[in-house]
């Protein structure tokens, strides 16, 4: 059983991170914490992609070595996904700045109070 787990420990790590991120995202009232959760979630997915590209004993996909290369495509996809994540974070943070200016708070509870 333990061996089974050890064989796939990379997935378990990213699953745990994903759950942490997901929980932070939906349960926290503070907007910045939500964004932090979003970043953890996304990074966990990146970890999943990168770890599934790995092949034991092979090197990074740059043509210099003789040992063969790990799968390069997930790296490419994740470069794209990282940029998407950065852009989402940028838009989210600027929205938070605007919300703070308009409502004077970034706590969901307080905003709902101000609102009503």
């Amino acid at each position, binding site marked *: 059983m333990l061996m089974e787990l050890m064989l796939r420990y990379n997935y378990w790590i990213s699953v745990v991170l994903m759950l942490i991120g997901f929980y932070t995202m*939906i349960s926290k009232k503070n907007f910045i914490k939500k964004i932090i959760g*979003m970043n953890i979630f996304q990074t966990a997915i990146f970890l999943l992609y990168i770890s*599934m590209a790995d092949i034991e004993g092979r090197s990074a996909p740059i043509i210099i070595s003789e040992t063969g290369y790990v799968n390069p495509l997930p790296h490419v996809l994740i470069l*794209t996904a990282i940029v*998407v994540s950065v852009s*989402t974070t940028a838009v*989210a943070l600027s929205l938070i700045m*605007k*919300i703070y200016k*308009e409502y004077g708070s970034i706590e969901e509870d307080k905003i709902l109070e101000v609102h009503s």
Partner: protein
Amino acid sequence: MIQNLPIFIVIIPLVTVFLIPLVGLWKRDYCFYISALSITLLFSISVFLLNLSINVIHYHIGGWEPPWGIEYVVDPLSAFMILLITFITLLVILYSKKSVSKELPNSIVEFYTVFMLLITGLLGIVITGDIFNMYVFLEIASLSAYALIAVGGKRDALLASFNYLIIGSIAACFILLGIGFLYMVTGSLNMADLSVILPKAYASYPRVVLTAIIFFIVGLSIKIALFPLHTWLPNAYTHAPSVVSAELAALMTKVGAYVMIRILSIFGISLLGDVPIADILSWVAAVAIIIGSINAIAQTDIKRMLAYSSVSQIGYIVLGIGLANQTGLTGGILHILNHAFMKGCLFLAVGAIIYKTGIRNINEFQGLGRKMPYTMLAFSIAALSMIGIPPLCGFFSKWYLALGSVESGKWIFALVILLSSLLNAGYFLRVLEKAWFGKSIHEEVDEAPGSMLIPTLILAIGCILLGIFVTIPVSFINSILSISKLGWT
């Protein structure tokens, strides 16, 4: 040049996007003309593509053949969606000139840039044949949608947009996870290639493939606001600028439904036969239809009412997808077309009313029928069509959906459709009664300007024509279904 047509569908709006800020630095009024010009060009190209798409066009970007490079696929279904998107957008852009210069006087340049990015995203999602490319364009569309919603009139728009952003990025993460799982067990990202490899992968990794389906369905359900994941939609549509509400309500969710059809057809019948995903979808859709309609009745803000009505109408489309038979799917795709026209028309009409009077509360609609007869006429036609009065288009998609549910032996869905039509009648007739028969309480209101009126009326006329000549879209959809090989029906 003609073999390069598919790529122009995305490149033309993209180049427009760079030109708008550059021209905007010099003269900001030209932004509108550039956008309108590029959409007109796109519209003519898409008419052309629809004719060509009988033989499915495969366009290999960069000259790399599919599993290695990215491929564009123009089959009748995607050509149909492209035509729908460009047509509705053309009308919305024409409408936007007056509306945007009133609602966003300081940021016309930025607005048109982001709006064109939204269009780029939507077109890219529809035309691509590569699953990761689809994700990238989905994010372009979503990001621009967040920004466009946030600039609506009041500060509530910011909160609505932020909520949408959080929920939308959860959805994006789920879709990315689904792509990851599929790639993990197949090693390919091309949709056609995937549908070939997946049965074999399913034999050795059944759980991974199933989980991929679950993540795709949940992620897309959030993006199209299927009940119970619809919570972002009412606020977002209510507080967005009226042009954006119309565009998103008419197109964004439809594109999500299109992606759902595509993704399900990747998985194909052999996989979906094992798990009752289609059944679950249709039951959820039935609940969505009822709950959306009931919620709509309870609203007093007209835009919020229309937003909840959207939740219920998305239920119809998903019901068509979930029924998984030819007639049901015909109804679903027909409803994509019809609902784009109806909801577009309703939101544009409401936008014109808000532009002229600032009224959003239904109770203040009294006597508007006499003050703004043409706008209210368009609104009434679309509303009656939503209810499903026979010669109008809304009736026929409901008819096909009901037929489809009877065909698959699920009478209860036909009853749900009937019940929801009654509920629709409940909330729309209330507005119509106030508008046409109420005593006028507005003195100095007159008709909306022509540039706003004409697109609204064109959509209303479209509702009538799509109803009277319903055989044309239906026979076209039937040929779509036979050519596109949507695998799970």
